[in-house]
Structure formats: structure tokens, C-alpha cells
């Protein structure tokens, strides 16, 4: 009986490991494929699709970065990310304060209304926003696109910050008020300094979203010198002649910052993603 049990236990462990390892290999293979291909020469890629490269050629990275176009796109993506993450963070913190700490008529309705905006897919807004942006001469400008991204980031950001502000103990706020702290003082000196973890989560999650975003960037940054990294990458497939290893090198460069930040701040990523369920 006892031997029977241990055998079953071992079998169970084996089946579980096989399932999980299988899923992990499935997840890692495309990433592995991208990495190794980016070090191969073209003939080598054709002859050896999935093996390790013979030598670590760095030529592909030089090709990918050549001409400064790739770099220009990284700069554009960075400008949009920094601008919209910064703007949405300031505006969201201001808005979360009354939602978390004050009473006013219509508070719940307004909060739920803002929350509901989280599920609206950007594609629905693209037609009217395009018409408006043309009218306001904001097409092909950083400001216009940052404005759109800021708006799209706000619902999640307000939700996250409101939840966080509510977890800060009432006593701390009351004590500060007794000491004569104004409403703005409570916000600036008490709530914000205590919210660092939430703010880090917000920055990480929102920056990732803007960095990866394609549709808005495609429609509102059409001029070649304004194109973002993701728009540049998406155009690679439709070319007639494709240097696959060089493309893979470009993709690797675009992915590395995300993987590095993820490894460093995994906690913040996971918390932010789960609490916000952002797309």
C-alpha cells in the first residue's frame, strides 16, 4: 500500500513538472528564437533556423541601428511615454484625492463612470478623435498624441491611486490636520510621500502601455520623423525584401528594456497588472 502511494506521488510530480515545463518552453521558444536569430548572418539563418549561432555576430545590431532612424523612433516613443505618464500621474493623483478623502454629491456615480471608461477600446474613439485632432491642428504633434494617451491612461490611474489613498490610515491625516495642515498640505506632505509604491506601479504599468501601443501611434503620428518604435516595427513585415536576422536584432533592442525593467521591478508589475487589469 505504501509503495503504491509513493509511486503515485512520483507519477503526480512528474506529470505536473511535464505540464509546467511544457508551458514554459512554449513561452520561451519565440524569445529564444528572436535572440539567437539576431546574432546569425543571413546564410546562417537560412541553413540553421533554430540552433545556436556559430559566432555572436553583432553586425545585425549595427544594421538595425544604422541611419539613425531606429534611434529617432526610440526617442519618439520615449517622449510620448514620459509626457503622457507624467501628465496622467499628476492629474490622476489630484483627482484621486477627493475620491478617496472627501465627500461630495455624486461621488460614487462619477467614480464608477470614470472606471467604466477603462473598458472602452481605443479603436472606438479613433474616428471622432481623428476628426477633432485635424480640426484642432494636433495631428502629427507630440502634444496631441500625449493628450490622447493621457486621457486613455487616466481612468486606470485614478482607480489605482484612489484605492491606494484609501488604505492610508485616517489617524495620520487627522493628526496632520490638528497640527494645522491645509487640505493641500495633507495631499502634498502626507499622502503623496506615503504613496511611493503605488506611484512606482503606476509609472511602470503606464509606461509599458504607451511604449507598446500601436493603433493611436499609427493614426496620429503618421509623418516619418514622428513614427514610434512600434509603428516602425509593424511596417517591417510588409516589406518585399526582409533581412530577418537584422529585423530580429531590432526586435531584441525594442524588447530588452521591458525585460530588464520587469526583472528589476517584478513586484510592481504584477501588482499593477492585477489591480488594474489594463489592456
Amino acid at each position, binding site marked *: 500500500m505504501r509503495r503504491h502511494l509513493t509511486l503515485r506521488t512520483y507519477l503526480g510530480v512528474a506529470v*505536473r*513538472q511535464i*505540464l*509546467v515545463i511544457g508551458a*514554459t518552453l512554449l*513561452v520561451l521558444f519565440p524569445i529564444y*528564437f528572436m535572440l539567437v536569430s539576431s546574432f546569425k548572418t543571413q546564410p546562417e539563418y537560412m541553413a540553421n*533556423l533554430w540552433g545556436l549561432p556559430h559566432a555572436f555576430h553583432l553586425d545585425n545590431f549595427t544594421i538595425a541601428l544604422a541611419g539613425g532612424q531606429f534611434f529617432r523612433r526610440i526617442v519618439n516613443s520615449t517622449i510620448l511615454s514620459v509626457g503622457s505618464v507624467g501628465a496622467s500621474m499628476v*492629474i*490622476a493623483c*489630484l*483627482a484621486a484625492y*477627493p475620491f478617496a478623502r*472627501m*465627500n*461630495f454629491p455624486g*461621488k460614487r456615480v*462619477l467614480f464608477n463612470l*470614470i*472606471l*467604466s*471608461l477603462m*473598458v*472602452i*477600446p481605443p*479603436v*472606438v*474613439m*479613433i*474616428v*471622432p*478623435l*481623428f476628426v*477633432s485632432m485635424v480640426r484642432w491642428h494636433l495631428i502629427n504633434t507630440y502634444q496631441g498624441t500625449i*493628450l490622447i494617451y493621457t*486621457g*486613455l491612461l487616466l481612468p486606470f490611474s485614478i482607480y489605482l491611486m484612489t484605492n491606494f489613498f484609501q488604505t492610508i490610515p485616517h489617524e495620520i491625516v487627522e493628526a496632520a490636520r490638528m497640527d494645522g495642515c491645509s487640505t493641500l498640505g495633507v*495631499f502634498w506632505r502626507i499622502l503623496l510621500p506615503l504613496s511611493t509604491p503605488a506611484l512606482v506601479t503606476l509609472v511602470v504599468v503606464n509606461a509599458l502601455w504607451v511604449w*507598446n501601443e*500601436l*493603433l493611436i501611434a*499609427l*493614426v496620429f503620428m503618421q509623418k516619418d520623423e514622428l513614427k514610434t518604435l512600434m509603428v516602425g*516595427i*509593424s511596417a517591417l*513585415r*510588409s516589406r518585399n525584401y526582409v533581412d*530577418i536576422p537584422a529585423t*530580429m536584432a531590432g526586435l531584441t533592442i525594442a*524588447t530588452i528594456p*521591458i525585460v530588464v525593467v*520587469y*526583472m528589476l521591478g*517584478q513586484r510592481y*508589475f*504584477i501588482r499593477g497588472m*492585477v*489591480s488594474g*487589469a489594463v*489592456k
Partner: protein
Amino acid sequence: MRSNKIEPFLYLAPALAVLVVIFGYPVYSLVILSLQRQSQGKQIFAGLTNYKLIFQDDVFIQALQHNGTLLICVPIMVVAALLLAILLFERIRGWQFYRTTLFLPYLLPITVVGLVFSYIFQFSGVLNGILNAIGLKFLALDWLGSTKLALPTLMFVIIWKEMGFGIILFLARLMSVDEELYDAAKIDGANWLQLHLNITIPQTSTVIEFFTVISIVTMLSWVFNYVYVMTSGGPGNATIVTELYIYLMAFEYRNMNLAAAVSVLLLLVMGIFIFLELYLRDRAEIGEALG
């Protein structure tokens, strides 16, 4: 609190201003646009003509059907994510490494993922290379180039990328389940399957519902990037979806009015899910699940 009546609105003003410009006004002008048509360079009232026209367009009907087909991904993702979350929860050796890895695809840009996969699935790509090498030549198909296979191939990539989120969500909830429940059931002699059917699934039901709704929303309205990067709707119209239809209608065919009509319909459908999502988010206590 001595906060006066207008003070809350001073803090809210910037947010409300941006939200009105980016959501409020566009929804209003979207509805107006959908009821108009272009005539000699001017927009004139057209009633419900645009709505009638789109339903006469076979391509739109195809797009709707494809979004419907994508919903098959939802149960697959829920079941697989739950199973993997349970295995990680049971502290399988190396579970922290697996958790980190399995979540990684969710963070990668769809653009990058889509492009890498389109090289993997090329007819002369690495997948067929491997299939040929292990003697499964008959399985080496044109994954993205054939009208029959392109949509299922896309679905595989969508599942590959979106499932990690489910795993993390379920795992976070499982960690907060009272361990005594499991201990008690084990003493009563419950086997693995009974344990999870009777404890895990009821205990995580709210999160399962939430992930299901989020995934349905994804399949109906957040798959543009996959399609645009991997197939651009092709071959033929084999992978066209509603979002791509709106994009093409607006920016290739320059018919903003028809694009607006489709957008209004999509917004109405999403409205149902918005209410469902709000309700489930409250019930699933998503914010608190993580502590």
C-alpha cells in the same frame, strides 16, 4: 472635515477636462458622424442609412464572425490558466521561476510578438523546419498563408500572449485562500480532483468570472495589433476583425461615416460588458486580493 463645497471639484477639474476632451466629446461626435453622410464636401443628415449599409457589407459580416470565432480562446485560456495556477500554487519545484516566465509574454509588445511569430509560422519558417526534421512533413503547413489556418494560428498567438495574466490573477487569489480548508479536506480523504473542484473553483469563482469577462472584451475589441501585424486581415479577408474593419474603413477607404456607425455598434456591445466588468470587479475585490 471642513472642506467646502467646491474644493473637491478643484482637484477633479483637470481630470474631468481631459476626460471630456478624450472620451465625452468624441462619443457625442461619433454618434453624430454615424448619422451623417458626405455630400458635395458637406456632412448631411442621413438617418440610419449607414447602419443599413454596413450590414449589407459581406466583409463586415465576416469580421463579426471572426470576432465570434475568437471567443473560442476564452474557455481554453480560463482552463489552462487555472490548471497552471493550481500547479504553481502547489509549490511545484521552481514555481517562482515558472511564474516569472509564464507572465513574461503578457508584458511584451504585441508588435514584437506578432512579428516573431510570423517568422516562426512562415512556410519556410522554423516551425515547419522542426516538423520536417522530426519526420512530420505532412504537418508542415502554410500557417498564416492559408485561409483555413490563418485565424486558428492567430488564436494560438493571442492565447500565448494573454494567458499569463490569467495565471497571475488566479495565483494571487489562491494565495489568499485559507489553507485550513485544504487541510481539512485532505484529512477527510479528498483526492486531488475533488480538492480543487470543491475548494479551489468555488474560492476563486469571482476571479474566474472577472478574467472571463476581461478575455471576452479582449477577443471582441482588443485584437487589432495581432491582426494588423501578422496578417493585415488576410489572406483575402480570412482574418479581418471588427477593429481592423473600422481602421480600414476610416483610413483606407476614407469613409468616416461608415466607420463611425461600426464604432457606435461596438461601443454599445462593450457597454454591456462595462457594466458586467464593473460589477465583477467590485465582487472579485481585485484591489484587495493582493494586499
